[in-house]
């Protein structure tokens, strides 16, 4: 009760002191405002980068293994796998027959072609040839229409599903379903359009791609292309087992004798998150350190002004001590003054940072996280308490006789 009384009295005194030194308080607060704005914006940007990455990585699916000629990420010399043989489309069928831990296998081949509808065109669109299982392995969802069926896939029908960006380009006003577009000059009927995915890895999302049945892809754009085989694992907890099983099947398909290294790679989303994790941590650490410096400078400003304030009010401190203020009471008074200045600075900083974070949102998928708001308030209070401590301690330890004599 007594503590609360003292805190209340301390706050009343603080606000009175802040009000009576307006210019000084504004300038001191400005340091904290700038500090909080930069720190919150930096955390918002970091949050944005992470979120963009997560969204992008999600496109790869946590439960999908990618059997490919090359690794996604490697520290080894490129020359060690440059001469690997291409993967063949027929592997997919063999894998599908032998694998026990998977429920969907989709071979994917790709090229780049001009895609047109009427006068609208997309140059160099990614064209992928795959099977109906792609819908399962990719985990992508259609915004409208459907993906091609097993029959269409097996029969190599001239149908296609298009990505959201392609759809916007070719059909700015019309409904694309049922329309016939030209892919590298060949007519394909649009049966479905994917949902927009966005993200950092534009080429890996469905957005800029056109999907056609594998057999028609091969007859129109050539059959001898490197293939990537996507294998969706039925049970997420059996990723490792599935990987080992898949490796065995692949070694057999490639005719590798024991002791020979793999001449293929089984990639998965985890590789990306593992690679990006430390990078994102480094960005966050450096970014927050640099912006934290401005908050630190703000804190020094507070400390400086609190020293001035304590010296100016030496007489007042003497009076208060004479009529019974304990050390703790005086300490609390000046601490709460410093904390109040910082808190006000923090709140103003947040009020400025919030609209700015909406600007950041135009470039990165982010929103100022709620946690950042609370952490900023906590940090500004902390800065106040830390930078106010030395001046407050000096005030608390003043000798009442000398303080009373001070003019």
């Amino acid at each position: 009760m007594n503590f609360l009384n003292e805190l209340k009295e301390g706050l009343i005194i603080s606000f009175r002191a802040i009000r009576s030194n307006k210019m000084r308080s504004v300038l001191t607060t400005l340091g904290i405002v700038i500090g909080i704005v930069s720190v919150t914006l930096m955390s918002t940007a970091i949050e944005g980068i992470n979120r963009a990455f997560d969204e992008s990585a999600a496109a790869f699916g946590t439960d999908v293994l990618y059997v490919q000629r090359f690794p996604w990420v490697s520290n080894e010399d490129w020359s060690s796998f440059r001469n690997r043989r291409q993967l063949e489309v027929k592997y997919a069928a063999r894998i599908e027959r032998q694998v026990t831990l998977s429920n969907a296998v989709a071979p994917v081949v790709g090229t780049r072609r001009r895609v047109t509808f009427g006068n609208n065109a997309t140059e160099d669109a990614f064209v992928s040839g795959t099977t109906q299982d792609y819908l399962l392995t990719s985990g992508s969802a259609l915004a409208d229409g459907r993906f091609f069926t097993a029959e269409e896939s097996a029969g190599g029908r001239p149908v296609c599903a298009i990505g959201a960006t392609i759809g916007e380009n070719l059909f700015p006003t019309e409904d694309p379903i049922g329309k016939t577009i030209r892919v590298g000059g060949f007519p394909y009927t649009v049966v479905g359009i994917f949902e927009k995915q966005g993200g950092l890895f534009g080429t890996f999302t469905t957005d800029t791609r056109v999907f056609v049945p594998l057999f028609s892809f091969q007859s129109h754009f050539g059959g001898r292309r490197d293939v990537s085989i996507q294998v969706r694992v039925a049970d997420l907890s059996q990723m490792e087992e599935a990987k080992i099983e898949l490796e065995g099947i692949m070694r057999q398909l490639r005719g590798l004798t024991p002791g020979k290294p793999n001449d293929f790679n089984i990639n998965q989303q985890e590789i990306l998150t593992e690679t990006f994790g430390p990078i994102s941590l480094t960005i966050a650490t450096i970014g927050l350190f640099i912006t934290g410096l401005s908050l630190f400078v703000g804190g020094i400003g507070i400390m400086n002004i609190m020293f001035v304030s304590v010296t100016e009010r030496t007489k007042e401190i003497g009076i208060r001590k004479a009529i019974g203020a304990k050390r703790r009471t005086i300490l609390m008074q000046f601490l709460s003054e410093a904390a109040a200045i910082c808190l006000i600075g923090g709140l103003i900083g947040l009020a400025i940072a919030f609209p700015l974070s909406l600007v950041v949102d135009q470039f990165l998928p982010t929103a100022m996280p709620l946690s950042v708001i609370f952490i900023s308030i906590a940090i500004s209070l902390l800065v106040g308490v830390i930078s106010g401590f030395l001046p407050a301690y000096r005030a608390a330890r003043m000798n009442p006789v000398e303080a009373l004599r001070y003019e």
Partner: protein
Amino acid sequence: MNVIELKNIVKTYDMGGAEEVLALRSVSLNIGRNEYVAIMGPSGSGKSTLMNIIGCLDTPTSGLYLFNGVNVSEMDDNALARIRNKEIGFVFQTFNLLARSDSLHNVELPLIYAGVPSAERKQRARETLEHVQLGDRAHHKPNELSGGQRQRVAVARALVTRPSIILADEPTGNLDSKTGEEIMMLFEALHRQGNTIILVTHEADIAEHAHRTIRLRDGHIESDEPVVKRKSYDVAKVS
């Protein structure tokens, strides 16, 4: 019982290096309840030092100080703060009010430090202001009050905790003689109401209001005798 008992109080100030100033050399004195004592002496006599020690603003270098029978000579800062808060009411020459606070808040302040709840605090502060006839000036700030009014606010602040002693350091020093007289009349009234008053002054005129005069010279008590020719007022007028 004595409110204040000083036994062989010595106070030295370390002026840096080997130099020491002996401000009080073995002062012993007792002050009883409801006494009205003046401490006199020229500047440099040690009267400010004695007042600071009696007021628990400072501790003696050696000697024993019993306040209401409790040894305060070896208390730490916080314990002394508690004594100052509850047992001593200070009245200073320069009033020493908080400039940014109104009269009511100035009078309330000791009660805040004593942890008295807000409603009771305001009530008591208001009553004490009325007691010094400033009930209508509760929301005036010190710069809106005359010197005499300011000193009466200070007296109210000293009284509000119902302390054991009121310690006044040259209370009329910054006032013209007429206002000074008014303040002395107020002290007279407070004394008649049972308060113990210690007046520190160098003006013989002012000291004559007390019942007993202690004269200090060069850090020791030169004389300690009752006042023969007391100045007295018709107290009925003031309270």
